[in-house]
């Protein structure tokens, strides 16, 4: 009644005065702040971030803290269940806004390319060494197996029945597989390779890190053993350098990517097998976040490798040019991962 005479503001004050309970006076004194926070959070949830004034954005953390402390007080002093439920909901929504991802996709990508990726790769140090050792070992084992008994070749290289690259093939046949494919459709090659073997192998090598890294190692060995077998086959016909050139143009990028993927898998596996003082799940989460960054890079490297393989190798038909491109890529990757260290980037994970 009185409220109508004095207008809204006075009415509110009158309501505060009239409130019988101390907890209601507490509520009425802070309700304005809660409503403002509610409005800000609602706008953020609606994706209308740009419509927020700078004032509101600055006020958000303070308002969030007010709401959280109101909740803590209300739990101790108020028995208004609806109020506590509302404050819990409001604090939760504001918590999402305040402790949500701080940067969007664009900002993250920028940080990723300008140091985040290479920092994550370097942070896996020992796993990179292990993965590299495993890959070299796999290649050697593949070579030795096939040179001991050529029948091994068929189990290591699961090629189709029309594959001419078999033990006993003539030099001319093998040479033909390395050069003179310009007339082929680069596109179909590209599409086939992009989604085939390598992307899958690297993703699986990473995923299998869950099982304490053992499957990652086995997969790396299996795949590089095929490489060893191929090397043996071409070596027998004196085509080692030509094969290396044929492989190197995209292989330095691709094998590097597979190396990183295997190392990422090992990294997770090692964190789970030897979590140290942390709980297993925490250790896995820390390693997983770092490894996932590396894997984003691996996927991009594989796209690049597929482009080099699908187009570059078909268009460039000379071993030396292929070797130069492959060697340059390898040098670039090494420089990027190990020499490029911007000071500002924090190590993720």
């Amino acid at each position, binding site marked *: 009644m009185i409220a109508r005479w004095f207008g809204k503001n006075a009415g509110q004050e009158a309501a505060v005065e*009239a409130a019988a309970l101390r907890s*209601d006076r507490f509520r009425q004194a802070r309700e304005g702040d809660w409503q403002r926070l509610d409005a800000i959070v609602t706008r*953020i949830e609606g994706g209308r*971030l740009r419509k927020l004034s700078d004032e509101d954005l600055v006020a958000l953390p303070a308002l969030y803290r007010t709401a*959280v402390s109101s909740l803590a007080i209300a739990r101790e002093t108020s028995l*208004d269940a609806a109020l506590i439920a509302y404050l819990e909901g409001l604090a939760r929504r504001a918590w999402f806004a305040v402790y949500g991802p701080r940067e969007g996709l664009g900002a993250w990508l920028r940080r990723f390319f300008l140091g985040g990726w290479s920092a994550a790769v370097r942070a896996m140090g020992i796993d990179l060494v292990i993965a590299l050792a495993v890959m070299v070992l796999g290649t050697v084992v593949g070579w030795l197996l096939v040179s001991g008994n050529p029948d091994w070749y068929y189990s290591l290289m699961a090629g189709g029945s029309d594959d001419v690259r078999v033990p006993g093939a003539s030099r001319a046949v093998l040479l033909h597989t390395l050069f003179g494919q310009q007339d082929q459709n680069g596109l179909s090659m590209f599409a086939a390779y992009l989604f085939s073997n390598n992307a*899958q192998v690297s993703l699986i090598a990473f995923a299998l890190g869950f099982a304490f890294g053992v499957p990652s190692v086995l997969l790396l060995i299996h795949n590089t053993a095929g490489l060893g077998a191929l090397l043996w086959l071409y070596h027998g016909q004196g085509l080692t350098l030509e094969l290396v050139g044929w492989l190197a143009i995209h292989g330095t990028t691709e094998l590097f990517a597979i190396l990183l993927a295997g190392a990422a898998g090992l990294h997770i596996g090692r964190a789970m097998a030897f979590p140290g003082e942390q709980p297993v799940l925490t250790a896995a989460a820390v390693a997983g976040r770092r490894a*996932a*960054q590396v894997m984003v890079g691996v996927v991009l490297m594989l796209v690049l490798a597929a482009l080099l393989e699908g187009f570059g190798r078909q268009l460039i038909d000379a071993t030396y040019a292929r070797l130069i491109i492959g060697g340059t890529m390898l040098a670039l990757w090494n420089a990027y991962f190990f020499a490029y260290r911007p000071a500002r980037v924090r190590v993720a994970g």
Partner: protein
Amino acid sequence: MIGRWKRRAVRLPVQDRRKRQVVTPEGVPLPFTIGARGARALALLIDQVLIVATMAGISYLLFTLARAIDLKANAGGGAVGQTVVVLWIVAMFLFRHIWFLYFELGPRGATPGKRALGLRVAARDGGRLTTEAVVARNILRDIELTLPIIFVTSTLIQGEDATFVAWAGAAWFLIFAFFPCFNRDALRAGDVVAGTWVVEAGRDRLKAALSVAGGALGESALTQTRYEFGEAELSVYGEYELQVLERVLREDREEAMVDVAQAICAKIGWNSGRGDERAFLEAYYTQLRARLERGMRFGRRKADKFS
């Protein structure tokens, strides 16, 4: 009599099993509800449908564009077409990832599918949800879902002696698909690795305080009776009964209020007339709350009528 509502109050065991407390960096525990597995599956389905629809739309546009260009540049037409297709393959390959990352890193913090079902990704430890965590959980999705499906379909298309591989792929898929069913927090493999979980993100409006409403001050607007309760009459109930009373008043159902009013009258030996239950209950609620809150300030809490 109040015992009857007691049973109604504890009717949600499934809901309760999904309740979690997370301590914020400020040191205040906040309650969270783990997203239901069915809702998450549905959210994923919605996202996949939207992704396919968007991809189809973009593809159609690109295709029309490529054809238009092809008609004009008849000499280099093939090359242009090929480049467009290559770009298309790369774009489609990256699109699925970008979809999830873009939306989960945006201000809304959820993909359209999750938003539709009121779900959000949050850090399990109550701290900041880092960009790396979101990236990690979405990279793993590829291994859990897309990879085995591509694997199985490609081996099935290749035909012959692929049954073993197809079965292995299917087993892989099933292990990851049902991973959330085998842990308490409904984590999928990506959540484990990223340190995240998916929680409900509902919102409530602030309901009016009952203790300032009509009859709360003790006087009935209908009969002008003043309801004043003494210490003895207020000390029979505790916080639990107060909460039941609050719920009854908010639901505002006539027969429930009559039941409760009768129960209270029987307990405290009053005899209120019929027809004015709401004012009676509001007055009793306010005075009971005042008494209990006064006790709280002195460190005395009364959980329910038995304590």
